[in-house]
């Protein structure tokens, strides 16, 4: 069931939600969290679709905040809030409110969202695009326990990682990090099989402008305490991870984006499924735990500039303090220049 409200307020929206629930006969629903999706009109449909699929695992109230662009100065000065309330089957599991903000109210979105949060349930804010650089200071981000950004969608993903490291607050997380969970899990399983092996260096190979590659390399470098390289290939996504050890190289490579091959000395080569996942699956994983992700924090704080390889920027952008003891790597090229093939 769908209720359209024009030029409305949060309390009218709350009434519409109650009315909608009554009409479909399910007065109490076991929603476990409120998911606030901050996006633009262009990405709203796909984001909501992913959230609806994820809501099958995490029934939630979804608030889609769409900031509309007003073309004329007169429109810009007039504030207006339109809402579309969906309950029942048209809302995945749970309820959905699509909020369209016009004019001044754009800068006060939190005043609309706050009254619509579920009582006593965690709040998650997700920016599918145009994530704020300092999520916890964002007025909407401040309402949430969990702030999900997506550096993959950023213009300058690699330098954005540095900013994220500087501004990190517990509860921040990034879908570029979520994307590499299967890689991390498989690499950990590979080392489980060689418990006493000493890794001496790591290399992550993947498409350019994909911050997941940097994150994976930083994670390996941080956990293993070894130098890590980030090298560039044509993709899709990440294509290989190589761990140099005293007894040869452990390689996990995936050329087609779905089936990978794990090879290490003393073991036969094995095929492992390593599929690139849909946004809905990423989001579902993200919502599974709502406590601060300390491993992400440690990884981020390792510092992109400490990685060797082609896509590391020359130095950290001004304003972002470099972590202690970090030396800017002599990076060959600034990010954005033509990707070079990795020289191994």
């Amino acid at each position, binding site marked *: 069931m769908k209720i359209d409200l024009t030029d409305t307020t949060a309390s009218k929206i709350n009434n519409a939600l109650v009315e909608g629930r009554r009409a479909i006969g399910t007065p*109490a*629903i*076991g*929603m*476990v969290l409120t998911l606030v999706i901050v996006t633009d009109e262009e990405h709203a449909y796909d984001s909501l679709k992913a959230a609806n699929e994820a809501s*099958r*695992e*995490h*029934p939630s109230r979804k608030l889609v905040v769409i900031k509309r662009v007003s073309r004329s100065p007169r429109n810009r000065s007039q504030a207006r809030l339109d809402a579309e309330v969906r309950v029942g089957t048209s809302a995945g*599991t749970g309820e959905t409110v699509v909020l369209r903000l016009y004019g001044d109210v754009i800068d006060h979105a939190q005043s609309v969202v706050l009254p619509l949060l579920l009582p006593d349930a965690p709040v998650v804010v997700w920016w599918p695009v145009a994530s704020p650089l300092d999520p916890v200071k964002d007025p909407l981000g401040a309402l949430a326990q969990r702030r999900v950004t997506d550096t993959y969608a950023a213009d300058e993903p690699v330098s954005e990682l540095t900013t994220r490291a500087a501004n990190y607050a517990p509860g921040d997380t990034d879908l570029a990090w*979520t994307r590499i*969970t*299967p890689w*991390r*899990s*498989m*690499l*950990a*399983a*590979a*080392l*489980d*099989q060689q*418990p*006493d092996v000493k*890794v001496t260096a790591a290399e992550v190979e993947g498409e350019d402008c994909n911050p997941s590659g940097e994150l994976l390399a930083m994670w*390996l470098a941080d*956990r*293993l*305490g070894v130098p890590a390289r980030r090298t560039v290939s044509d993709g899709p996504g990440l294509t290989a991870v190589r761990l140099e050890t005293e007894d040869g190289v452990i390689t996990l490579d995936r050329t087609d984006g*779905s*089936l990978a091959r*794990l090879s290490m000395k003393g*073991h*036969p080569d*094995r*095929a*492992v*499924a*390593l*599929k690139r996942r849909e946004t809905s699956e990423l989001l579902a*994983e993200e919502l599974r*735990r709502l406590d601060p*992700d*300390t*491993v992400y924090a440690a990884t981020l704080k390792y510092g992109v500039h400490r990685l060797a390889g082609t896509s590391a920027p020359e130095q950290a952008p001004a304003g972002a303090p470099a972590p202690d003891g970090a030396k800017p790597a002599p990076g060959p090229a600034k990010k954005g220049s033509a990707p070079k093939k990795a020289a191994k």
Partner: protein
Amino acid sequence: MSSSNPLRDAQDRRLPRIAGPSGLVIFGVTGDLSRKKLMPAVYDLANRGLLPPGFSLIGFARRQWADEDFAQVVHDAVKEHARTPFREEVWQQLVNGCRFVQGDFDDDAAFETLKETIHELDKAQGTGGNFAFYLSVPPKFFPTVVQQLKKHGLAEQTENSWRRAVIEKPFGHDLKSAQELNRIVHDVFPTEAVFRIDHYLGKETVQNILALRFANTLFEPIWNRSYVDHVQITMAEDIGIGGRAGYYDGIGAARDVIQNHLLQLLALTAMEEPASFDADALVAEKTKVLGAVRLPKDLGKETVRGQYAAGWQGGEKVLGYLEEEGIDPRSKTDTYAAIKLEIDNRRWAGVPFYLRTGKRLGRRVTEIAVVFQRAPHSPFDDTATEELGQNALVIRVQPDEGVTLRFGSKVPGTQMEVRDVSMDFAYGESFTESSPEAYERLILDVLLGDANLFPRLKEVELSWQILDPIEEYWDKHGKPAQYPAGTWGPVEADEMLARDGRSWRRP
């Protein structure tokens, strides 16, 4: 899982528990259980990324199959029954490790082939000699299979590898046979390498009993004789015995269900808080409470058994038990059993636990109902509380998994009138639309060597000690009461509770 692995961190909870290098050997791989539950569970685990690279699956059966035929069977079973969507790349990962060994259980050559296959997989797939043997075979073959495993050195663990045995219920048909079976199995495999599957314990709702009781403060203070009036544990099936006449006749509902599932549910409901959530602490509490179970004095009055008679079940005309194909018309096997137990400890003294199970009952349902005492004093007059029942907390194990809390509430209006209402938590609402199947969890636990959810030897023996006197009494006295199919059991069962001033819930 190696703690020295630098890539692992207890804080890193995104990384799942992946089993180490290993393989699974299924005996009786052509059976229903294997096709409908085990193979799909293996696939679902692989699809969720929980199986190690190179995981291998060996099927053992009499059928003349090549590896490819076997792979095809697994493929079809997975496509039809798996919980998660079929993905080609996951299948590619699995199919590399699929092998089939043809032979009878007493065929030495076949076990030698199995041994070679295991060696071959260690080389080709890197399974590291770690194999679990899943005995999905009728109990009469258990001794043969484990003896063969021993004879061909398949049960031998080296320092760096493990061998485990997985057995399914029934764990014997009385204490003596259970002990005999345990002797045979433990002769070959050490205690910690034997995993008894009671798939009920793999269910999310059953694991949730512990979370509900011990992670909350709300319920534990009233979880005792001061507040609880009685507890009803029900497992009802709407189906008859189907094609299982050969297995079922002579076994009956009590041995088939009460001995394992219901007594396990009783133990989880009634046990004290374990010191920790590891297998030993858990089993210590469970055995303690099972050891404290006391049988009623008058078994004739406090136990009831029944057989379904012909009748109508949900709009379908069905046969009575004695008319089913393959059943002796004079059979005294129970298809319904209800018993009253008490627990002799400070927490539960005087609180009866009513256990019932049966086939061809009203509908398929398993639940634990903790029924509370009435308020000691009511300020409202009798008419106001006429419609008020006893407060109850119901754990719905299946289907529609969840918890219901029933209590009284004022009916809106000018008069004071209190009526029962229920507050409902449904798993399907608050958590994933499909929780992992019990077998997924249990197979993974076997591969990880995590014995939390598996009944131990001692528990099995204790539960036979509880049931044996009842079965003996039934053997010597009377015969099962008849109840029409599609109803909630014989009237004798209702009378049994009526004598205590109580009545069965309609689940």
